[in-house]
């Protein structure tokens, strides 16, 4: 259960939104000249980091508008929300709280909201 701040409507419960997966995935400009492997990469492969993740959301039970968010998938903490026409924030803006690639964050798995 997380709260998401829709850039148009303000803070709402996550159940009002639908997730659109990874953000900033660009459709290849030359699909006909791609190999099966490269086309497969575009269709099926998405980043799945434990930590900082750029993703899309749509406020489907509200204004129905799409927007982007940066979330820490190890704590569900939303670090930034920005509109689709805004520039992708740089990774260096955010602090990764993970001790190791597969490790737990310093506040414990998923307990960010209660253990602040």
């Amino acid at each position, binding site marked *: 259960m*997380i709260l998401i701040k829709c850039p148009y409507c303000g803070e709402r419960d996550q*159940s009002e939104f639908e997730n659109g997966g990874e953000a900033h995935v660009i459709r290849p400009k030359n699909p006909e000249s791609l190999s099966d492997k490269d086309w497969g990469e575009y269709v*099926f492969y*998405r980043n799945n980091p434990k930590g900082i993740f750029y*993703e899309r959301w749509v406020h489907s039970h509200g204004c129905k508008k799409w927007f982007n968010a940066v979330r820490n998938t190890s*704590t569900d903490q939303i670090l930034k929300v920005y509109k689709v026409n805004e520039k992708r924030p740089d990774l260096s803006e955010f602090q990764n709280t993970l001790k190791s690639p*597969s490790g737990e964050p310093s506040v414990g*798995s998923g307990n960010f909201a209660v253990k602040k």
Partner: protein
Amino acid sequence: MKKKYSITSLIQNSLSDNENWGKMWRSPNPKKHYDVVIVGGGGHGLGTAYYLAKHHGVKNIAVIEKGWLGSGNTGRNTTIIRSNYLWDESAHLYDHAVKLWENLSEDLNYNMMFSQRGVLNLAHNEHDIKEIKRRVSANRLNGLDTMWLDKKEIKDLVPIMNTDNLRYPVLGAAYQPRGGVARHDAVAWGYAMRADELGVDIIQNCEVKGIKTDNYKVEGVETTKGFIKSSKIGVVASGHTSVLAATAGVRLPLQSRPLQALVSEPIKPVINTVVMSNAVHAYVSQSDKGELVIGAGTDGYNSFTQRGGYDVIEETVRAIVELYPIFGKMKMLRQWGGIVDICPDASPIISKCDVEGLYFNCGWGTGGFKATPGSANVFAHTIAKDEPHKINAPFALSRFSDGRLIDEHGAAAVAH
């Protein structure tokens, strides 16, 4: 020394107040080098080590686990076992597992509490009926014991079910009598114990931080207990598999999401089969302790938090209460989440990859427990022979570029 469980050992140990059972496996310090390293000490990983040692004569194996054995999804699922999948490839893989389940307690001399109490998949509308009947027919062509039940037959099996007076009435069901449940901890412990006897080193509380490769060849794993050299590495880390793969420069088509389950307070036996419903998303069975074991759906976004959102449970509990009004006033005791790795076609990946000596057994998504022995068995074959067993050959990573998907989304009897 081989530990044998029998009626005499039970009596003997009860005379000494059960104080002298001894440890089930050693806890050795990791050696510098292993022939095979398995990353992930759940049922699939421990089973892989067991079959590697037993069937393929590999002597020098380590299983490395971040927490304690079975602390991941092996201990977090709703223990349902079935093989009524639509596509041939899946039916073969999952039924390979069911056949192994049937003899696993004897094979490991460890009680899996495997109970073939049958699994029902309910149909709530015209489309469900057509889809489920098609699947029943496909299953029967693959030699599975699935059958179609009408409403009366369902009522006879589960008298407490409300079939008529609800928004989505129950119109029929697929029934697989060989399906059922098993004790999930026992799977990890049984495999661990017998693998240990065959010389496998089980290393707990040791996190793999990265996989070291050189020129598309594995060299070993960097762990919290130092570097371990190995020329073959099998990664069976469920939700964290793609994170580990990334350290070796391998990309996998997986998305990690929380999947929740919950159990109720214990009650007297009321339901002696497993009932699953795709349309209203509720599955329920009753454990030997009397608790109702309820499986919910996945959250709609990627997360590694092992808890999940409340609205997901709410949806499931709503459906449970409508299907079984008798449960309306029950209290839920515990709720938890596990991180499942979902593939675009909702089928697993049991495969080699571009890096020599690196093998993946992942993408089991919401339904990996039922496959544990089968998955471990064919994965051990894949690692030992450096080529897939004919059962897991279709589950190669290459299907995401050649297009031979095994699309079990919706076809697999539950929503993924």
